[in-house]
């Protein structure tokens, strides 16, 4: 068994309540990000990455990797995976999946960061120091995710155009991303309009043939928030579907 699979099994066995896991979140998160990258570098496993990200996302709740304190770790990892040249952001060779996972993790963690917190301020400063406000993410494997992060972290980007036409991830990733987006939207200011790109995501997701149930729930949540409905909070448990 490869070290990554062994780590998965170990963490599944230990569980979230383990004090060791609680103390080692940063290390575990870094390990996952690194492990993802390592796997991608191995050509023989490149086509088989999807089941691994599925396992990763299954473990997400288990070990609370969405802890806001990890957002900086994820951001640093993401910035390490990309190059920026005159506003155009590209992945470093072999880092496509690493950037993808790191961006997913970062967005998820950002959903839990308080809007006025010092953590968010720190993340923003680190981000804008590297990524310009008019950054072009076209061509990135994580195009959709990083665009949402950009809107969240850079002021004045609310009306940024994000094209969802080609967004067709694996069901597991769709579930994860939809739930993260719903959380990001839920964190918006009371009475504030839901951004157009989020409603377009909901439209796109609901237009799929038989989208996963939780994606439907999250799409409707985004719509309901914009309509001013009182949407009860729902957790993330049970949102994952079998790949």
């Amino acid at each position, binding site marked *: 068994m490869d070290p990554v699979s062994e780590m998965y099994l170990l963490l599944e066995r230990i569980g979230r309540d383990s004090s060791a896991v609680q103390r080692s979140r940063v290390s575990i998160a870094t390990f996952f990000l690194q492990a993802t990258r390592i796997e991608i570098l191995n050509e023989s496993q490149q086509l088989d990455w999807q089941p691994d990200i599925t396992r990763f996302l299954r473990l997400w709740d288990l070990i609370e990797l969405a802890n806001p304190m990890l957002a900086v770790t994820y951001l640093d990892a993401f910035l390490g995976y990309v190059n920026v040249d005159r506003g155009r952001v590209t992945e470093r060779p072999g880092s496509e999946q690493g950037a993808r996972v790191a961006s997913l993790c970062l967005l998820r963690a950002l959903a839990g960061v308080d809007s006025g917190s010092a953590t968010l301020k720190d993340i923003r400063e680190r981000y804008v120091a590297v990524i310009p406000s008019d950054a072009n993410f076209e061509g990135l494997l994580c195009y959709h995710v990083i665009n949402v992060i950009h809107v969240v972290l850079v002021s004045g980007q609310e009306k940024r155009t994000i094209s969802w036409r080609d967004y067709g991830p694996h069901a597991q990733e769709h579930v994860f991303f939809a739930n993260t987006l719903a959380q990001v939207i839920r964190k918006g200011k009371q009475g504030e309009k839901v951004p157009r790109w989020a409603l377009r995501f909901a439209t796109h997701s609901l237009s799929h043939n038989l989208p996963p149930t939780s994606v439907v729930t999250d799409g409707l949540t985004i719509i309901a928030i914009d*309509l001013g409905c009182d949407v009860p909070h729902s957790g993330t448990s049970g949102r994952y579907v079998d790949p």
Partner: protein
Amino acid sequence: MISKKLETLVEAANMNQIHSKYKAITAFFPYAVWQHGPLRAFLRAVRSSKQHGFMWNHIRPLIPMLLNEESHLSLKQAAILASPHSQWWKASTSEHSIQLFAAAASAIPYTDEVGMSLVDTLLQVASDDSVRSFIPVGMWSWLNKRPSLPPVCWGRRLASSRDVFQIIRTLGDIETLTSFLLLVWSEWDELPFEGLEEMRASILEDLGGIEMWRHREDLLRHLNHILGRLDSGLEHLRQHDPDIDEGDIQRRKDQYGTLRGALLEVDMEAAEMLLREALRLTILFCPLIPIDRHKVPLDVYVCNSSPVSVAACPGCLLPVDQLRYPSIRDSFHDRVTYHPLVSFIAGIARFDLVHGVGVITLHLPIYGPGIDVL
């Protein structure tokens, strides 16, 4: 939750809020198409809006997908009901998408609601230069169902242009032409000047002649209804058009009054033609039938010679006032008072006397001259 919210917005008649939320309302559509309740709530919300193409343009590609041959009937129906508010044809300006729409329309059960959406959509498509030519001729027959169109109806408003009406005229089908006029004439909308002129010309050129009496009667009745509504004041019209003023009403009165005048003009010409022919027959005909001065005896059967449509039981009497030919009736009232030959005019064609001495066949000039009395 969302359905209830939409119902609340509609019941509160809060147009500003509905318009400000059109993206969220539209984003709900892909989910609503699968279920009756949400679809009803969605349709109520979009129909309460006066905004043209209310639905968000990002939803447009979905409609042709729902209209696809393989779609379930309920999805096709949902797409058709939403069509007047989506302008989906702008996203796929191809003949195929219009054909899909026509095929889907023929596949689902017809209801007045479906008919309303089909006609509204057809009229909007017809008013769009880029897709008008793709409309199959058979689609125009939908107009002949004459569904009730809502007060706010973009198809009706846009299609009253000269361009669209010229296409209707070139079809050469008087039934469709009459249906079109009945659908686009409304107290809720003002007609564009060029469209009005084309309609007036059509009345004079296409709707003259004796055989057109039924079409003129339908149109006159409809115009009288519209003018009556316009006479009833602002309150009725402001229900759906809060900005309308007396000036708007007067312009509409002038427009529909002009059209009514043109119809009466051709109707009068037809009446005079009939009158001339009928009076010429008096000498031959009067001695054969006992005539009450105030009643026309209808103890006759009217044969099927076109356009006769009246049949009567032997012995019954039909008051002249009930004749189905308004301007001729008026003409007789004004100029001839009661003339027994009104009964001919009502029938226009051949009469078989049951208790008479034989068969009277009346040939008016349009069918060929000649009178046979047996």
